[in-house]
């Protein structure tokens, strides 16, 4: 029973969602299932918030390793929750929009949350540099091709590429670095991406059929019955 009910739900929902794409009468049911998903997701937020508080409160209570980070998490969570729930400092009062200009929630979002997110995002620039350094070392023929292609793309996307090869006559314009960069992007790069996308599409179809038909049950934590 513990296995059969989830498999049955998967079969019914999966079949209806597929049919809703092809048969207009079932279209509405597909939309309904999407709404059901959103409703369940709302409850999941409550469960998630509760779980977060319980785990970190427990860590603080037991003074486990790095419990200070948990204090920051719990205080931040509760403070943001209170600011949004009780609409603290909201110029329009309790009936106003939660993100009304001047409200504590909006101020915290703009001046604390956004800069923190931007800081994490900014790390990406440094990580791209370090990953590129490792990937572009000409250790073998494949890495050398990658290095040359990336060098052409880098130059082609800057004015330097045009300055360096702009003198090449129009009849040989493909040898101009910006044009070579465009060719790499729209021919070998796009061809490779399309091959991967065809494979992904077939993989999704195959995986979906395995799940809907109950052949694949690893999402239940078991390989087979």
């Amino acid at each position: 029973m513990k296995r059969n009910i989830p498999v049955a739900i998967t079969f019914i929902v999966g079949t209806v969602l597929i049919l809703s794409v092809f048969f207009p009468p079932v279209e509405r049911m597909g939309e309904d299932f999407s709404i059901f998903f959103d409703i369940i997701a709302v409850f999941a937020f409550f469960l998630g918030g509760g779980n977060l508080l319980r785990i970190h409160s427990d860590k603080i209570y037991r003074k486990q390793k790095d419990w200070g980070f948990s204090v920051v998490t719990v205080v931040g969570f509760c403070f943001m929750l209170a600011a949004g729930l009780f609409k603290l400092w909201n110029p329009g009062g309790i009936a106003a929009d939660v993100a009304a200009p001047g409200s504590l929630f909006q101020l915290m979002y703009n001046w604390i949350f956004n800069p923190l997110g931007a800081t994490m995002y900014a790390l990406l620039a440094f990580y791209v540099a370090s990953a590129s350094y490792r990937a572009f070392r000409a250790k073998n023929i494949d890495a050398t091709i990658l290095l040359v292609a990336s060098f052409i793309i880098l130059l082609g996307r800057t004015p330097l590429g045009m300055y360096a090869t702009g003198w090449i006559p129009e009849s040989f314009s493909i040898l101009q670095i910006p044009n070579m960069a465009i060719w790499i992007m729209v021919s070998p790069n796009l061809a490779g991406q399309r091959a991967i996308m065809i494979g992904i599409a077939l993989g999704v179809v195959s995986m979906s059929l395995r799940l809907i038909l109950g052949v694949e049950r690893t999402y239940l934590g078991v390989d087979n019955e």
Partner: protein
Amino acid sequence: MTTARETIKEAYIGAGRVDAYNDDMVRYITDEQFGYVAAVDGIMVRERPATCFYLGAFFAESLILAETGNSIGAIQIAGTAMPTQLPFFVAACDYTLIGEELFAASAYLSGEPKQLGSLKGQDVGKFMAMVAILIGVFGATVSEAWGGSFFFWLTDTVRAIFTIQN
């Protein structure tokens, strides 16, 4: 989260290490992209896991996670169906499941004939796509070079089969 816990618990039972499992291993962090990255990076740096698995849909967080894992010396296995994130995983991880391999992995590891059969089906699908591409290329080339309504029709038909219309 209950489903995730059940899955992990069953996996521990399957491996005969149910004693090593506890519910707090599976926990909610956040649904915010960079808040999640900050938390997972922190866990990786503090707990220094031996292996990191990145499987599923990833966006800008892919390289931040993979490079952090690389900096702590963990063996990294990634798999995603997001073509834009694949280069980052290939550059930063030890092994990468590229596109369809992510979906084929569980079937391949299970060794079940029925699941392996679905992989054969994928291969047949790829073969059909190859044939359609060759017919389309041939039809487009001939129609451009010499004209002919049949080849235009052939090219358009093949294109229509593989075009998603909203």
